[in-house]
Structure formats: structure tokens, C-alpha cells
């Protein structure tokens, strides 16, 4: 249940951003969560909804964009098919993770006076 500790870190970041922009409230929170980031999207949503009550984020729904995992050849021979060994079928080099490990606060909508 590290989703709660991720939400705590998220609130710290939101608080910093809100202060630096002089915001009085947050209206929307957008995050990206990768498929193999190790974060359960529904647990994250539940944790966020529990924590946001009577905070700056009380009226801010969270938009969670899921990002599919994508492994690719480091030499540009293209992506590895899902469910296959993580080596390039053309050159046998170990694949590189191109997407799917994101735990990112992408955007806030802030209410400024």
C-alpha cells in the first residue's frame, strides 16, 4: 500500500506548486502512471480521494493517465512484441524501457485570486 506514501509525496509537490503560484485552491490534478511503475491506479485514486478532503485539493478531481509499457531496441530496430523476451530479435541487444515506468505529476489547474 505504498500508494498512500505516493499520495503524500504528491500533496507535498502540489503544496509547493500552489504556494509558488499564489493559488488559493487546486481545481484539477493530472498524473501519469506507467503500466510497470509498480503503482495500482485504483488504490492511488482511493488514497488521493481520502487525503484531499479539506485540503487545497478538496475540489480537485484527479485524472490518471495510464501509460502502456513499451520496450524497444537500443539500436533502433523497433519495439519488442509484448510477452516476448526482452532482447531485440534483429541484433540480440537487451531491450530498453521506452515507456511504462512513469510516476509523474504532469499538470495542475490552479485557482489564483
Amino acid at each position: 500500500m505504498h500508494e498512500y506514501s505516493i499520495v503524500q509525496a504528491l500533496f507535498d509537490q502540489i503544496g509547493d506548486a500552489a504556494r509558488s503560484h499564489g493559488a488559493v485552491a487546486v481545481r484539477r490534478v493530472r498524473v501519469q502512471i506507467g503500466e510497470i511503475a509498480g503503482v495500482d491506479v485504483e488504490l492511488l485514486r482511493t488514497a488521493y480521494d481520502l487525503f484531499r478532503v479539506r485540503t487545497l485539493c478538496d475540489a480537485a478531481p484527479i485524472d490518471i493517465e495510464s501509460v502502456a509499457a513499451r520496450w524497444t531496441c537500443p539500436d533502433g530496430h523497433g519495439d519488442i512484441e509484448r510477452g516476448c523476451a526482452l532482447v531485440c530479435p534483429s541484433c540480440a541487444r537487451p531491450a530498453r524501457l521506452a515507456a511504462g515506468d512513469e510516476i509523474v505529476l504532469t499538470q495542475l489547474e490552479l485557482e489564483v485570486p
Partner: protein
Amino acid sequence: MCQACGCGDSNVVPVALNERILAANDRAARHNREHFRDREVRAINLMGSPGAGKTAVLEATARALGRGAKVGVLAGDLATDNDAQRIRAAGLVAESITTGTACHLDAAMIHKGLHRMPQWRTFDYLFIENVGNLVCPAVYDLGQDVNVVALSVTEGEDKPLKYPTMFQKADLVLLTKIDLLPHLPDVSIAGIRANLSIVMPVPRMMMVSARTGDGIDRWVRWLEALRVPRATAHVVGAL
């Protein structure tokens, strides 16, 4: 007009951030890593399920390394000091990090743990025995040099597929309790290797038994290869 709720408020501004949510942990991990590099301490983050044999591996490692290396352990434990006590009984320096309800260690906990174990500066190896869990510990960088995942033969071949994040981040998988294999006719080592190759870009696995000592010599050689000066270091592959 405000798009979120139609309240008519016009002072809602979008602010692009694109920051990792765990940026504060990443900074703390970088700080730990700098400490380890300054002192030439190799830090190993040892993860795995509860009961995978992490503490037993450390006990066997202590026996095998003997006086050849200075080793300390920070042992993450939800509620007890049992693991650290076992490790101390095996002759290593150990401190517990009691996490309470937290399911993982983070970089700040490691930093505090180092303060309670000032002799870490003299270690050749610092093992961080993470909380028994195949999910949460994989998400937090601690400042380690390598991630090692203990997977016991009784856990089933599909664990790598069920917990891809954990295995994707592993530099080495220690397949533990191999002395039990004669009792487990349905466990296929080839199946475990095949599943690892789907989640680890460079699948490395070593088979060990902490009880019999089987395979521990190869594990110790792998550890010794980590001590090669960093400029020329390479991680030895499993044969």
C-alpha cells in the same frame, strides 16, 4: 469559464509540471549514493517476498565471506528486531529499521539508519534487507549500487510475470532454497528462466541454498566483482 465545475470562475490557470512524484525520494537516494561512492561501500538492496530466504542468504554470505570483507546490514522489518538479531548472531554488524505499517524502505529511512550505524563508512558491503514484499520496495530508489531479488523455489514459476516491476529492476535474481527441489517435481527451472527473460532485459539468475551452501561461492564471486574499482567495474553475468 471554469471547465471543471462550471462555477464561472475565470482565474483557473493550467500549470505544467512534469515532475516525478517521488522526486524528493530520488534526491535523498542520490545523497546516499554519493556517500557510498565516497567511501567505496557497495550497497546491495536485497528484496523478495516474506519468507523468500533473504535473512538466510545473509547468514550464509557472512559464513562464506568470513573475515575477507567488512559487511553491515540495515534490516527493514515491520514490527520486530528478529532479522537484525539473526544477522548479528552470524557475526555481522546490523541495525533494524522498523517501518511500522510501511511496506517498503525509502531513501530517507536508509539515511537515518546510517546515522545509527556510523561504522558503515568502513564497510566493503552494505546490505539493505528490504521489507518482505514483491511490490512496494521496487518503487523506491535507496541509493544502492545493485538490486538483488531473492525468489524461493516454492514460490511458483509465474512470480516474475505477476510482479514485473520488481524483476525488471533486479540486477540479479537469487533462486533460493534449491535444496528443496527434489521435493518439488513440478517446479521447472527452465520455466523460471523463461519468465525472467520476459521481464528482465538482462536476465541473471543464480541458484543457491543457504542451508547446504550450494551456489553460495558463485554468489560471493559476484559480490567480489562489485568491488572492482568503479572506473573498470562490470557486473559478472550468471553462467
